[in-house]
């Protein structure tokens, strides 16, 4: 068996898919893994994928062209998922998809399709949550800043939404775990950056003096009906893991933390 080891990056996984298809040995069993999963098995040939944006681009284009934009969008979500098996999931799904065609999306009973659906659901559920749960705080320079620690890589999936509705504002969406940020200004639209943590963390400290945080907390407390207090329901709908960065749950300090 031939095993391709990919980085946990969309381009790397798609390059892996490209290389796997280009394998000259007919009918050889092939798997794709993320290289940091550490497990090596006997009787397998391991090959490190060398990320090549052109190859990745080609795979993406042929997905869009032959399978349609919905399947591409599914694949895109899975590529951002936090799941150890995602490289193999994408690979085996695409192999099937290219032999069956776009109607693969309806064939929910197939295990390859089921797994993709599961992963898409996980990522898009978190995305939907974050459309609502992201909290910005204003800095003295008038830049809105939001900090989050999503389970899956969400910044690329959120930036467009906020750039549209907050197009009049300068804002930064910051994934603290991955040190990835989307930066937006009315003049230049948005772009992604990696690793500029220091300046951003300083801005977050400044944003803790945003006076509207307190008004929001007053509203949040006043709108609940005491005789209906229901922490179970609240927790099901607004899981604990989102709360550290939500203004209404940060009573020691204001802002987004």
């Amino acid at each position, binding site marked *: 068996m031939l095993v391709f080891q990919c980085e946990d990056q969309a381009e790397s996984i798609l390059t892996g898919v490209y290389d796997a298809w280009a394998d000259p040995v007919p009918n050889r069993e092939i798997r794709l893994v993320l290289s940091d999963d550490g497990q090596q098995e006997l009787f397998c040939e391991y090959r490190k994928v060398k990320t090549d944006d052109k190859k990745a681009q080609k795979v993406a284009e042929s997905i869009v062209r032959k399978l349609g934009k919905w399947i591409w969008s599914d694949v895109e979500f899975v590529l951002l998922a936090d799941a150890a098996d995602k490289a193999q999931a994408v690979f085996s799904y695409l192999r099937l998809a290219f032999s069956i065609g776009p109607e693969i999306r*309806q*064939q*929910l*009973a*197939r295990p390859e399709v*089921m797994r993709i659906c599961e992963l898409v659901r996980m990522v898009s559920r978190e995305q*939907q949550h974050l*459309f*609502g*749960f*992201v*909290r*910005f*705080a*204003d800095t003295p320079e008038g830049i*809105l800043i*939001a900090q989050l620690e999503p389970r899956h890589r969400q910044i690329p999936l959120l930036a467009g939404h*906020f750039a*549209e*509705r*907050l*197009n*009049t*504002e300068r804002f930064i969406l910051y994934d603290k775990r991955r040190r990835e940020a989307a930066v937006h200004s*009315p003049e230049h639209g948005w772009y992604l950056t990696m690793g500029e943590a220091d300046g951003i963390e300083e801005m977050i400290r400044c944003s803790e003096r*945003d006076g*509207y945080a*307190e*008004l*929001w907390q*007053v*509203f*949040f*407390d*006043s*709108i*609940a*009906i*005491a*005789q*209906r*207090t*229901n*922490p*179970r*329901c*609240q927790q*099901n*709908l*607004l899981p604990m893991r989102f709360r550290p960065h*939500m*203004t*209404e749950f940060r009573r020691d300090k204001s802002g987004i933390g």
Partner: protein
Amino acid sequence: MVIQEGLTVKEKLHILADAAKYDVACTSSGSKRAGVSGRLGSAAEAGICHSFAADGRCISLLKILLSNECVFDCKYCVNRASSDVPRATFTPEEICTLTMEFYKRNYIEGLFLSSGVVKSPSHTMSLMYETLYLLRFKYQFMGYIHVKGIPGADQGVLERIGYLADRMSVNLELPTSEALKRLAPGKTRKTILEPMRLIRRGMESNPGGAAPGAYWTSRMRWGEADPLLAQKRAGFSTCIPGDGVNAGRIFADDPGIRAKTGLLQENGGYHLDTAEDPSAEILPSGSGFLSGGSFRLERSWLPDGRLSNYVPAGQSTQMIIGAAGESDYQIMAVSEALYRNYDMKRVFYSGFLKTTDDSSLPDTPGGPPLLREHRLYQADWLLRYYGFQTEELVNEKHPNFNLLLDPKCDWAIQHLEQFPVEVMRAPYEQLLRVPGIGVKSAQRIVKSRRFGRLDYDSLKRMGVVLKRAHYFITCQGKLMLPVKIEEGYITRGLMSVENQENWQISHPDQYRQLSLFADFSVR
């Protein structure tokens, strides 16, 4: 009345959010508006929940009253004129600033503005109009706005404000006109239904008319003609072919219900179910869409010369449950009539909680009737998405829901002759009637069974929850477990699933992490 001078915005916000909290609706769905360069805001079709309050309810909009001063004296309301609570009033500018600043920080999807009756209904509505006007024109706000219609307000302002809002709602308050008279002396069935009808007319005047809501979409799927056609026919009593299960017929033909709901009685013109158009009497001819008025000013807040539609996200309403001794049958019959005749987007149910010390109202020492409220929402869902009709669920003989079982399970147990259904073959409509199978599950089953056989494992992996469904389905001819299709047996099985949930609904504040195990057992 305690009117306080010189309150800060923070103090006002506390008073006026607190006073608004009994209004149930907070959804921001039904409007789709892309962002526009240079303006703040957009609207997402399905709405977005931004937070969940300590009572578990979604917070999507900045839900506040413009003022909690009120000249009316509705007995169930904390803000009634005779109530001794601190009063406050926002200025339109204050509301605009809060909305804009909250929106920028992604706290909210928009504004839900309601109000007590300051001076008069028309005066109040004009203050609300001013607020919306400023938001749309001065602040160029593109987010969602839900505005309350105040019963008794002048028709002109109701027509105008509908072009600035996404959704409007007028509260029905109580399901019978007798109770309304007794508990809300400032309001009548007429002053409530009149603006509802006006809103409906306004929506119909939009280019392309009003797209049908969930109720009519599923009625059409179940073989009824579309609403406009149906409404043009002679009353609703003839528009459903088949088994005579028909809310329209109940109203038209059944003197029992007619007397009880009171919906049909008041001043003759208010039949929810006649073909003759009572609006001719209600709405004097004048300006507006009713007489071809153009409202070009109000419609022009959209950029690029586009004109806004009237109440594009539709109207909703709410009823108080358990304040006046009404039955579930009465409530659901009224809801269905509202869905049929006004094409409401939603009817909300608000379990009565006594906040005043009025002796004519029941005490609520155990809190609001949460389980009953839950059953009404479940049944409401069955009407709007599952093709059920009121009479199938509650009727003259069984006027109230079984509190121990959800309405769909209860119905299925009464109709065991229709089960089990075969997953590989049953039509979509029949799958929807299986307890535990929801719209998504039914759609997934129908989609995927075309491509191959399904078994219980693949159902589970598709996300179909089997703890209730397995009593009612076969998969390739086989039951999942060796169960008996027998009423007592299945009832006991379903009860063991439901007990836990029912307990949780009526004891919301008692947190038991253990529920995890109960939720995943049975299978």
